[in-house]
């Protein structure tokens, strides 16, 4: 790496020093952030925004869990309870999980993984962020102005009859949809057009395959939710009669529209998480990923099959039995690529040299939680068991294992993995480990009781419940607070690192992908000189360097030496 003189520590400077080799110091002032076109700074703005939304959604979840401490009223009235779980679901889905990994980690690493300076359309990227912010503000207004009590699913005709702010929330979801579409479009074009010259499709890191598959879903499915909430909006305002049977509409049509988007969107949450897990497991095991091609194509397969299974949300909705049968069969097809990934990750760990640093703990936690989330999906894809389990706490537990236990653990694991790259600081492994243990224990304590009570007969979205389920609810509530403690520990660990963390090496984990072959934090333009493209998992390319406490790439070093020799060669000729 070229070295650029750094200001000595302790020197008093009246003006902050502009440092092009560090994107955090390449420009100063609030405008340099709010109007930035740097994908890395946009990623950090998303991180803060999504973090705040997550905190809000989490507080609603805790309020819901507190209310369920007793079978009747504990802290709030029924109407308030309905608003709490609606806002929890809507915020977590639309504001947190859908953007999460692509917007934060994807934005940060995607161009670097490709050896590019930025995404294809940096201004569009900034627009995506502001659309997200506008949508988020919309939801906050909903919160204070009218509330929302439809559940995050907005099912008609209840959503048409209710007095709450459905039209406003629909507008918010509509705007957020555009943010998602534009991000997907941006990523797709970037991956197609901006790979380093020698990077073929099969030399791309697996996270990029995950993000590419995600982009396909975002571009194809999101317009449908836009249309759906648009129709809901018009129905609410002008009583047109799409969905309300009183006006000649069909409520089941709304369910079809809704799930045509909302099922694929769970793959928008999980595919990038799977990509992150692929990166973490191979780097932390110091071993070449096992079965690159199968993992890459399984991402694409999940994205494609994911479009054909929405009807499994509707086995008891009144759709025809033949449709339900076809959807059940297709649903099982999605389980295969997921299974392939899990086996390939395990095979990657086989004969590895496994570090148990926080990112790997989260990756192993992912295997455990995704295992439960995926396998419990089998009960719900199976027709006759789903009839019993549909709309019970079994479902609630299942989708929290997949959406939170997997997608969100993937995000947190990914943050622990990329944190040194993003901020150039290491964090306390002890704090990271404690946060993992609390999150893992708290999560399972929250949701395992929900499986048990669900199959025994506890419906979801119940304010009052039969007293025999109280013990399960109480365990679940205790679990949710342990989980919250774990999440706050992780937050503390990150904040602590910013102020007290040791300086991070360029490549602390020994990953081979290009994003680790620049400084930590990266240059304003990502790379001084784009490193040579290698097999992204060829572990022989990197070796441990005791002096810098990090890994160094042989191919990159060789290229730099060659370049230096070339430069001095031309200098000699010139002289």
């Amino acid at each position, binding site marked *: 790496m070229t070295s650029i003189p750094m200001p000595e520590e302790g020197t008093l400077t009246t003006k902050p020093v502009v440092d092009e080799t560090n994107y955090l110091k390449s420009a100063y002032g609030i405008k340099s952030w709010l109007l930035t076109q740097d994908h890395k700074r946009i990623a950090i703005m998303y991180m803060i925004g999504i973090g705040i939304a997550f905190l809000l959604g989490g507080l609603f979840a805790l309020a819901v869990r507190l209310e369920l401490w007793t079978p009747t009223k504990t802290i709030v009235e029924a109407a308030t309870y*309905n608003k709490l779980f609606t806002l929890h679901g809507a915020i977590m889905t639309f504001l947190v999980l859908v953007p999460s990994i692509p917007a934060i980690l994807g934005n940060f690493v995607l161009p670097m993984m490709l050896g590019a300076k930025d995404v294809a359309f940096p201004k569009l990227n900034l627009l995506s962020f502001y659309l997200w912010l506008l949508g988020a503000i919309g939801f906050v207004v909903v919160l204070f102005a009218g509330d929302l009590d439809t559940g995050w699913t907005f099912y008609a005709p209840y959503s048409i009859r209710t007095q709450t702010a459905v039209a406003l929330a629909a507008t918010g979801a509509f705007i957020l949809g555009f943010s998602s579409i534009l991000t997907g479009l941006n990523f797709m074009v970037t991956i197609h057009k901006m790979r380093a010259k020698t990077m073929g499709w099969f030399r791309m890191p697996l996270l990029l395959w995950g993000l590419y598959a995600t982009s396909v879903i975002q571009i194809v499915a999101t317009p449908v939710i836009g249309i759906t909430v648009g129709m809901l909006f018009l129905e609410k305002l002008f009583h047109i009669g799409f969905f309300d049977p009183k006006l000649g509409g069909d409520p089941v049509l709304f369910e079809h529209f809704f799930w045509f988007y909302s099922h694929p969107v769970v793959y928008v949450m999980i595919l990038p998480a799977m990509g992150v897990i692929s990166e973490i497991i191979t780097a932390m095991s110091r071993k*070449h990923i096992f*079965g690159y091609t199968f993992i890459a194509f399984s991402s694409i397969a999940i994205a494609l099959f994911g479009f054909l299974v929405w009807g499994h949300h509707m086995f008891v909705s009144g759709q025809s039995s033949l449709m339900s049968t076809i959807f059940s069969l297709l649903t*099982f097809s999605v389980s295969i690529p997921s299974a*392939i990934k899990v086996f390939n990750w395990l095979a990657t760990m086989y004969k590895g040299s496994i570090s148990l640093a926080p990112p790997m703990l989260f990756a192993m936690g992912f295997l455990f939680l995704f295992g439960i989330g995926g396998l419990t999906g089998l009960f719900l894809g199976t027709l006759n068991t789903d009839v019993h389990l549909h709309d019970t706490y079994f479902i609630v537990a299942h989708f929290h294992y997949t959406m939170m236990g997997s997608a969100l653990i993937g995000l947190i694991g990914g943050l622990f993995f990329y944190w040194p790259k993003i901020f150039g600081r290491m964090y306390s492994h002890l704090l990271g480990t404690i946060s993992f243990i609390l999150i893992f224990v708290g999560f399972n304590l929250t949701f395992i009781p929900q499986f048990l009570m669900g199959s025994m007969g506890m419906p979801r979205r119940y304010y009052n419940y039969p007293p025999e389920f109280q013990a399960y609810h109480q365990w679940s509530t205790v679990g949710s607070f342990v989980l919250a403690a774990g999440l706050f520990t992780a937050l503390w660990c990150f904040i602590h690192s910013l102020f007290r963390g040791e300086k991070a090496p360029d490549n602390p984990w020994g990953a081979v992908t290009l994003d680790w072959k620049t400084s930590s934090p990266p240059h304003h333009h990502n790379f001084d000189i784009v490193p040579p493209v290698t097999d992204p*998992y060829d572990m022989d390319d990197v070796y441990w360097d005791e002096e810098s406490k990090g890994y160094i790439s042989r191919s990159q070093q060789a290229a730099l030496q060659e370049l230096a020799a070339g430069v001095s060669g031309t200098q000699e000729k010139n002289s």
Partner: protein
Amino acid sequence: MLHALTSIVAQQGSGGYKWMPERASSYAAEVDWAFNFVFWISVFFFALIVILTVVFAIKYRRRPGVEADNSITHNTKLEVFWSVVPLGLVIVIFWFGFSGFVDMRTFPKDAMVVKVHAKMWSWSFEYPNGVESTTLHVPLGQKVKLRMDSSDVLHSFWVPAFRVKQDVVPGRYTYLWFEAIKTGTFRVLCTEYCGTGHSTMLSAVEVQSPEAFKAWMAEESSGKNLSPVERGKKVFSLKGCAGCHTVTKDRKKLVGPGLYGIFGHEVTLAGGKKVLADENYLRESILDPNAKVVNGFPPIMSLIPLKDKELDGVIEYLKSLKD
């Protein structure tokens, strides 16, 4: 809380934890069989994943001087193997679920048809001879087909002990059928979110011996000589008025105003206007619920069609609610 945990553990000791409620319908056993089949397959794969994760994490933990074996990058045969085996398994799982589902969705010709009326937030049941009740009475061993409708939003009819569930959709009929194999009272719950009173939209199925059912039916259909107040009280309960209106002295507010002592008193309407709650006001509020809404309540009451005699009964009943 601890007590419940010990009881869960105790259950585990005595023949395994029960995942499912008691079985009271003819196809409950089939559903439970499919559930257990999927359960043990899941246990196997989950154990495999967890054991391999833990064993590898320990056995191949990072040690100085020990390098990872980077000669292994893929093994197509192995990968095809672990793609095809799960594929075969899920096809088998699909088949069991499908055949069970076919049984649920194939309606017997000789079933007794009961009409189910769902609305926010109550259930009522109407038998072939016109008798109505708020809990579903069925004879043991008799195939029963439910024809369900909703007068407002989506609801869902669930009897956990029967393993049956079906959404009730406004604007169309939906159906389900079952044959009860056990006498007793079993819970009916609404499982499609339907607003403030969703979790109180409960009822029960009373499975009676054929003789007991006959006796109950005879009593229900004979007792026609009720006084108007008694008739009104019955209609009030059957039509689900109690889902939103209390009739107790404390005049507790639910979604709608409490009705105790309302007759003859002045009520304030939305907008501040005051009216006297006389017989005509009550009549109008039943026949055109959103014409004059009481201040502080949402205009969401749906029209409940009543026969003249029922309407008269309800008004007499409301008049009787006083000290």
